[in-house]
C-alpha cells in the first residue's frame, strides 16, 4: 500500500532559494542579452545603411558638381564686359556698349542652361540631427565633417557670385535696352563712372565664379575620396598640390 501525505511544511530550502534566484537572474540576463544583440544588429544595419546613403549622395553630388562647373562657361561674358568698358571712348559724356544679355537671372545663379545647383548634404545633416553620426568611425566621420565645412564655404562662394550677378542684372535693367541687331544683345548707355562700376562688378563676378569653381573642385575631391573609401583626409589634403585647381585664391579647406 502506498500512503501519500501532503507536505506538512514548506519545501523551500536555502538550496532551492539559490537555484530559483539563479534561474531568475540567468533568465533576465538572457533577455537583456537578446535585446542588446538585436540592438547591435539594428545599429550595424543603421550604420551600413548610413554609409550606403552617404556613398549614394556622394555619387549624386559628383554629377551635380560636374554640371555646376559649367558655370565657368559664363566667364567670357564678364571678360567681354570688362574689355568693352576698357576699350570704350565716351561720346558726349556717355559710353555705349553692345553686349550679349548678361548671364544673370535675378533670384538665381547662372542662366537657364548653366545654373548652379547646390550639392546635397541631406544625409549627413539628417544623420547629425538623429544622432546617427556616432555610429561612424572617427576617421570616416572626419571626412564628412570636412566635406560639410567645405559645403558651408561653397554656399558662401555661391552667395558672393549671386550678389555680384544680382548687381549686374539690376544695372542691365537700369542701363541697357534691347538691341535691334544682333539678336540677344543689349545696348548699354553709361556714364564713364557707371561703366567703370560695371567693369568692376563684372571683374568681381568673374573672380567669384573662379572662387566658386575652386570650391566645387575641392568638394569633388572630397566626394571622390568618400567614394573610394579614403579616410586620411588631413594627410591627403595637406599634401595635395593645389595648383591643379588653378585660380586658387581661396585655398582654405
Amino acid at each position: 500500500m502506498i500512503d501519500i501525505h501532503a507536505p506538512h511544511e514548506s519545501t523551500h530550502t536555502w538550496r532551492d532559494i539559490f537555484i530559483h534566484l539563479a534561474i531568475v537572474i540567468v533568465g533576465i540576463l538572457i533577455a537583456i542579452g537578446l535585446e542588446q544583440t538585436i540592438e547591435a544588429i539594428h545599429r550595424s544595419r543603421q550604420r551600413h545603411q548610413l554609409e550606403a546613403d552617404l556613398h549614394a549622395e556622394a555619387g549624386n553630388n559628383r554629377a551635380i558638381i560636374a554640371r555646376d562647373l559649367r558655370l565657368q562657361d559664363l566667364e567670357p561674358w564678364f571678360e567681354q564686359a570688362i574689355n568693352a568698358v576698357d576699350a570704350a571712348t565716351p561720346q558726349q559724356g556717355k559710353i555705349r556698349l553692345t553686349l550679349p544679355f548678361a548671364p544673370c537671372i535675378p533670384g538665381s545663379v547662372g542662366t537657364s542652361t548653366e545654373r548652379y545647383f547646390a550639392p546635397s548634404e541631406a544625409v549627413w545633416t539628417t544623420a547629425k540631427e538623429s544622432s546617427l553620426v556616432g555610429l561612424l568611425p572617427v576617421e570616416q566621420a572626419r571626412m564628412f565633417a570636412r566635406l560639410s565645412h567645405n559645403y558651408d564655404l561653397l554656399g558662401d562662394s555661391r552667395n558672393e557670385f549671386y550678389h555680384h550677378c544680382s548687381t549686374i542684372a539690376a544695372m542691365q535693367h537700369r542701363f541697357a535696352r534691347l538691341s535691334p541687331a544682333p539678336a540677344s544683345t543689349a545696348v548699354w548707355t553709361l556714364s564713364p563712372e557707371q561703366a567703370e562700376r560695371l567693369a568692376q562688378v563684372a571683374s568681381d563676378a568673374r573672380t567669384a565664379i573662379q572662387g566658386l569653381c575652386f570650391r566645387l573642385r575641392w568638394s569633388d575631391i572630397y566626394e571622390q575620396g568618400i567614394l573610394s573609401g579614403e579616410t586620411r583626409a588631413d594627410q591627403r589634403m595637406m599634401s595635395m598640390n593645389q595648383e591643379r585647381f588653378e585660380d586658387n585664391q581661396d585655398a582654405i579647406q
Partner: protein
Amino acid sequence: MIDIHPPQHGAITRRDFFVHLGIVVLGILIAIGLEQSVEAIHHAHERRALIDNFHHECADNLKIFDSDLDIVHRNIAWARSSLALLRNATPQSGYITVTAMQPGELSGMHAPSRSVWSVAKSSGKVELLPENIAEVFDRVDGEGEHFNDLIQASVTAQQRMKSFADRVGSPLNKGGTIHLTLAQRDDAASLIDNLLVHDEQYRLWLASWQGASQSILGGVQTRGAMDPYIHRATVAALQP
C-alpha cells in the same frame, strides 16, 4: 490501495508567496545591477575613446597650426612691405611705379579639424564627459569656431585683390613691376590693408586655437587652466 490524505494547509502559504516574490525581486535587482555594471564599463570605454580621439585630433591639428601660422606670417610680412612700398612711392606724371613686391601666399592653408567634438555633440556622447572636461573641450571647439568665422571674409578680401589685379592688369602679389594711378594706388592700399587685418585676425585665432589644443595635450582639467597655454601661443605668434 492508495491512501491519500488532504493537505493540512493550502498548497502555497503566504510565506511561500513572499519568499517567491523576494527571490524574483532580488533576482531582477541583481540582473539589473549586472546590466548596469556592463553599461557603466561600456560608457567608461566610450568616454575614454572620446577623450583619446579628441587628444589625437588636437595633436594632428598642431601640425596644421604650424603650417598655417607660417603662411599667415609670410602673408602679413608681404602685406606690410607692400603697404610701405605703395605709401613711399613717389608719383610721376600721375602714376607710381613700384617693384619687388614679394609674393604673398595663402595657397596651402588648411583648416584644422573640429570633427570629433562636432560628432560627439550630435551623437550625445558629450554627456559621458565630466562637466569640467566637457567645458574644456568646448572651449577648444569655440576657438576653432572663431577661426572658421573668419574664413569667408578673408576669401572675399582675397577675391577683391584678384579682381582689382584683373582690372588694372597688374597682379599685386606676384612680384615684378607695376604701374598704378594714384587712385589705383589708394584702392590697392585699401585692399591690402583689409587683407592685412584679416591675416592678423587669422593669426590671433589660429594661435588661440593652437594654445587651447596644446592645453588639452598638457592635460588641463578646467577652462581657467587653459589661459596660460593660450596666452603663450598668442605671444609666440605675435613675435616677428
